[in-house]
């Protein structure tokens, strides 16, 4: 029993596992606040320029956004399944992890393509790239797009980290002790779901906002 704990501080593996799950939750609360601060900035800016923000949000690609949302939600499902089968000690847990990683990669691929399209449409208001937005208040619209790139960028960075961790776990699967697999996948899944939830908010802020208006 004793030899399977990661830290001598714990008497049993079960107790350690409880601590690790708890730690992940606390960590996610902390992560929420990073996004929270950015989202606060977004909300304040949107409150300052309500019309421009609604108008600018119609420039993003609803199709690609929706597609990506679907992909990410599916990946949340696959990692949840991976968690269940890892707990049950079944073999295809590893396969499900690979699938999750692939879905994540697809999301990132689409996201990069979308950014590139936006660059071509002249919607990138920084780094001296050209910004040729034709709406009523280009100044405020620029703020919208800066926030869009900052927030989706931060999200993509998180997804990239998640992707690396999930891919790493899948690659090193045989080297992870059998009794620790469930724990490992649970932690990964929590983190993945978090990224997913953040995206749902971003989707509402940057894609859905303003579409219902005439």
């Amino acid at each position, binding site marked *: 029993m004793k030899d399977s704990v990661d830290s001598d501080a714990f008497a049993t593996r079960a107790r350690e596992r409880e601590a690790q799950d708890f730690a992940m939750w*606390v960590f996610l609360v902390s992560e929420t*606040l990073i996004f*929270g*601060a950015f989202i606060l900035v977004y909300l304040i800016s949107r409150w300052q320029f309500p019309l421009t923000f609604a108008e600018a949000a119609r420039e993003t690609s609803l199709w690609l956004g929706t597609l990506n949302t679907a992909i990410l939600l599916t990946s949340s499902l696959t990692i949840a399944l991976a968690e269940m089968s890892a707990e049950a000690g079944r073999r295809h847990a590893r396969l499900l992890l690979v699938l999750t990683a692939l879905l994540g990669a697809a999301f990132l691929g689409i996201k990069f393509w979308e950014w590139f399209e936006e660059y071509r449409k002249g919607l990138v208001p920084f*780094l001296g790239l050209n910004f040729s937005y034709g709406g009523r208040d280009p100044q405020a619209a620029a703020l919208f797009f800066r926030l869009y790139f*900052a927030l989706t960028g931060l999200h993509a960075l998180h997804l990239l980290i998640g992707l690396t961790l999930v891919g790493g776990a899948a690659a090193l699967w045989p080297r992870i002790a059998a009794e620790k697999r469930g724990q490992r996948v649970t932690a990964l899944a929590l983190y993945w779901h978090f990224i997913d939830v953040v995206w749902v908010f971003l989707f509402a802020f940057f894609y859905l906002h303003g579409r219902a208006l005439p």
Partner: protein
Amino acid sequence: MTDRTAGESYLGKGWGLLDWLTTTDHKRVAWLYLFTILGFFLIGGAAATLIRIELFTAKGDLVRPETYNRLFTLHGVIMVWFFLIPSIPNTLGNFLLPLMIGARDLAFPRLNLLSWYIFLFAGIWTFGALILGGVDTGWTFYTPLSSLSNSWVSIAAMGVFFAGFSTIASALNFVVTIHKLRCPGMTWFRMPIFVWTLYATSLVMLLATPVLAATLLLIVLERVLGLGVFDPAQGGDPILFQHLFWFYSHPAVYIMILPGMGVVSEILPCFAKRPLFGYRLVAYSSMGIATFSFLVWGHHMFVSGQSVYAGILFSFMSYCVAVPSAIKVFNWTFTLRNGYITFEAPMLYALGFLFLFGMGGLTGLMLAATAVDVHVTDTYFIVAHFHYIMVGGAVSAFMGGLHFWWPKMTGRMYPERLGQTAAMLSFIGFFLTFAPQFVLGYQGMPRRYYEYPSEFQTWHALSSAGAVVLAASYLMPLFYLTWSVFRGRRAGGNPWQATGLEWQTASPPPAHNFEEPPVCDQPPYAYPPPPVQPDGGQPDRGQP
């Protein structure tokens, strides 16, 4: 040296550099932190000394104006982020937390070591940026100056951002340890107050540090990508920066002071030989402070142009946050009442804390009144106020705690007379340095000026003289504590006859903290009534 119980204590085996740099023992990581933060304290102190020498005369004759701006930025950034915030939690806290709750280690020993490496890296990085680049924004990185000043601002801000990861990792480790690793019998209301304050501090760190990280990231994005969130020329809002910054930095003040309150709550009962008065109330008030601290950031912004209503609301909330602190002060005072008080060095530091923190708190209340604040904003009154809290309060508590637990950490006693002398000197030096600054500020001396009208000369000269005394009092322990490690009298397990699990194991503790898994079977601070000596004197507590 030769009779060190080899192989037994955590200091016992493995003295190679590599053994220390790869250790996962929380007690050794505490030492790593101690050395690093003391290094930063010396650097920050050197900058403070230069500032004070410059201000000794009314003319700006020592350094050029740009250099002056860089100096106070260096001093502020290093002292706040690389000394004060990690000081008590990461040295004393790291060492004591598992011992105090009867655990063998922290929940994540490797994460603990990693967080030290991140801290070291961030510190060197930031210090490099400050020296090479000459950042002049002050430790607050206020926009628009920080959006426009030289490009090293981004690098310095990145350094502070990195340090945030280390803070979050330690805080996470502490919270999980306290939740999951308390020994049998150690209920929440049997935890020492120091553990309570570490818990409250960690929660504040977990909730506030990410906001700071986001804010700094925005500054960097603003500078590198031209994000324009804060720059009014691009539709941004500089006041927004102040909101985000103070949302973190006001709670950060409690990150700096709460652990100090915890240390004092351990020392006072021990040297008064009395249980801590109102234990539960003190525990609750720690959590109260942590909660309220998130609601008062706007008192830093009375003159920023926020609305009058916001000003009034924040003023009111700031009075509220004073209540839990006041509760603590009353409880400490009541603990002393009828106590059998002795004045060893830790006790002197703790009493110094009580007095200086009290004064800092009272002047803080003055500042919470918008009318006064508008008069003294950005004067030396502010400088004096926050040094009373941060140096008079937090640094005194740190020194007191270091002396109090030194026998536990090293197994040796420090020379008591020298300790008492240093404690008194620090009190005198502190008072001489910072009391004149209240007067200066009230008379209208603005902060951050490298020269001033000659009317202010006398008060400035007094302050500079005090700084010399203060510096001496900080350097003294460096020598006698080091000496004591080799030559000091052996301490024995419990030299102060204190309660608390950490005193029930050997000094220095064995690698796994306890020979036998401990059980907690007593309420905290169960000090027995002291035995009355035949001659009516106090019992001698210097003996092992």
